């Protein structure tokens, strides 16, 4: 293949890899916003904690030396991190957000910011600032497809993300819990009267959103380095993804994640350095909001008097 084409294919693959992680985290923002109209600013840091949980789970499982096949270790790491992260998110929701449900909406947002800063610095204080990487849980091979390099990590990241997103979409569309979530985000006053256990559904939303972020966290942690402050940047980018797709809309968050992935990878291709990526991403966001304030798939909110 000629050089420009291989570059394009290569960068598209990289963009899909980064975009998958953004999409997985954006789902958590958008689900919580849909149900509580609250921006959960701690979500990026919950993602960060999940990567550390994955790191310790993987290290522990490998250290046991039970001669399990790598696939089993990979799946159990995933499962452990998902359970741990979901538990953490539900505890945060119950302790910090639930008492504020009747308070001014902004109080909950400030609390979320506080929880986020707490998680970052608690992790830093307890685990330390050394960058780490989750040990590889499958054979690392770099395939050369006529000039385009594809690593198994890329295949796993993109593949697992797509599977998880399909599962989530099915849960939200087909299951009872998913129906209750959609109902609550549709009307918060009537739905509780229909016998929907609102508190339980809200906790389930937090658990589901952060479990998906944990999948993203482990995939991310195998390809990149972990540090206690990484949740800030990735969290903001994922949040922007959710807004671009239309906050509150699950499929929109997936689309938004991939768009931001492309912005991140293709900015250094066209501009002198990657320091412009924030500028490009946020300018695109502003432009989009001027012309389509509800995002790509969001529906306009009609305010009734």
């Amino acid at each position, binding site marked *: 293949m000629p050089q420009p084409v291989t570059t394009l294919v290569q960068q598209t693959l990289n963009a899909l890899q980064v975009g998958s992680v953004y999409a997985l985290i954006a789902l958590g923002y958008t689900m919580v916003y849909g149900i509580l109209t609250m921006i959960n600013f701690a979500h990026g840091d919950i993602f960060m904690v999940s990567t550390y949980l994955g790191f310790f789970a993987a290290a522990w499982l490998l250290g046991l030396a039970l001669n399990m096949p790598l696939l089993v270790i990979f799946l159990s790491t995933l499962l452990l991190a998902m359970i741990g992260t979901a538990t953490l998110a539900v505890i945060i929701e119950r302790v910090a957000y639930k008492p*504020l449900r009747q308070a001014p909406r902004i109080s909950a947002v400030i609390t979320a910011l506080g929880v986020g800063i707490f998680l970052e610095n608690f992790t830093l204080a307890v685990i330390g600032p050394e960058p780490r990487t989750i040990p590889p849980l499958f054979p690392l091979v770099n395939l050369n497809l006529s000039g385009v390099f594809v690593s198994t990590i890329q295949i796993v990241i993109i593949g697992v993300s797509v599977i998880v997103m399909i599962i989530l979409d099915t849960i939200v569309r087909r299951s009872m819990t998913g129906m209750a979530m959609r109902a609550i985000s549709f009307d918060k006053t009537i739905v509780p009267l229909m016998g929907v256990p609102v508190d339980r559904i809200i906790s389930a939303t937090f658990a589901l959103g952060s479990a998906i972020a944990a999948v993203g966290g482990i995939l991310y942690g195998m390809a990149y380095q972990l540090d206690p402050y990484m949740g800030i940047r990735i969290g903001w980018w994922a949040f922007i993804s959710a807004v671009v797709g239309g906050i509150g809309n699950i499929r929109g968050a997936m689309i938004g994640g991939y768009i931001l992935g492309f912005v991140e990878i293709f900015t250094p291709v066209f501009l002198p350095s990657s320091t412009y990526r924030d500028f490009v991403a946020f300018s695109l966001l502003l432009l989009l909001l001027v012309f389509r304030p509800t995002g790509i798939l969001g529906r306009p909110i009609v305010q009734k008097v």
Partner: protein
Amino acid sequence: MTLLKTWQMPIILGMVLLLALFLPQMQLNLYVQMVLMYVGINIILTASLNLVNGYMGEFSVGHAAFMAIGAYASSILTVLILPRRWGPAEALRVLPVIGPELANGVYLVPAVLVGGAIAAVAGLVLAFPSFKTRGDYLAIVTLAFNMIVKSLLENSGDIGGLVARLIAPLSTSLSADVLRLSDAVGGPRGLLGMSKLTSLFWVYLWVIVSLFAMRNFIFSNFGRGVVSIREDETAAGLVSVNTRQVKVLTFVISSFFAGVAGGLFAHVLQFINPRSFTILKSTDILVMVYLGGIGSLMGSILGAAVFTILLEVLREVIPLVGLSEVWRWVVGPLLLVTLMIFRPRGIMGLREFKGFLPKEEEVKLEAAPAPP
């Protein structure tokens, strides 16, 4: 007694200013002076954000961007532009009669005003697209603006080079000026070379001026419109409050004072770089607003003072317990979350210190039932 009551506020303010003027002469510890100056700057920042987030009930999260614009604009003025006309700032300190302290104002006052004005213009540009709809829209726009400003400052070298090349055919001298400017702004390195113009006196003079201006704004006719938007925007529109105009103007005023605070900040630290004005700085300002309480000037004073001093106290106390300094940022947010859970409206939420209220307001407050 009535005389004392009428003159209560001017007396307190005068004493604050006198203290600010004479404390440094009394060999007050430089570190304490520094903390007090940060408290003052944070009071201006907090009160100005409180206009938008507290009184108007919107949610702006990128206040540090306006602070950055004010800081850079005023520093460019005192480092590049003014010295070429008036000589170095230090030379003015030998001026007879007014003394070194006041002589600093010859540079500082125009610099801070220009910083505020340019920040206000930026606020105006941002306000027009931002107030199309209500709700979290403004939060996202201001967040994006914060990131864009930081990114532009970091890449100032490239951008300046590009602009210089574009206008070189038109005017070589202007092109050279642009290059010198972008070189001084310095990208990720930051801008340096400011002389230390800010002192306790100037900070607290600006604190008093800003608070006085904001208090008069809030209790003006126009200010009633601001509060009515918080209570119910639709109803406010129905009683002929021009909601869009009120929102834009309030946002511009808020940006102006953020720029003022930025100008003061740059001339305390004598060095600014883009990393001082990230979204984390904005978060700090937000925390001070909600800690002190929305819709309250006294709340802004308390919020800024408590937050700034608490972090400094934790810096001293935490090593005593044998923990590393990181724990300061673990304990701080925990306190904030606890406060929010047990007192979601902050220390002063929607209440005001009586001395800040105009006279006719006092009467009404006593007659009206206490807010829930």
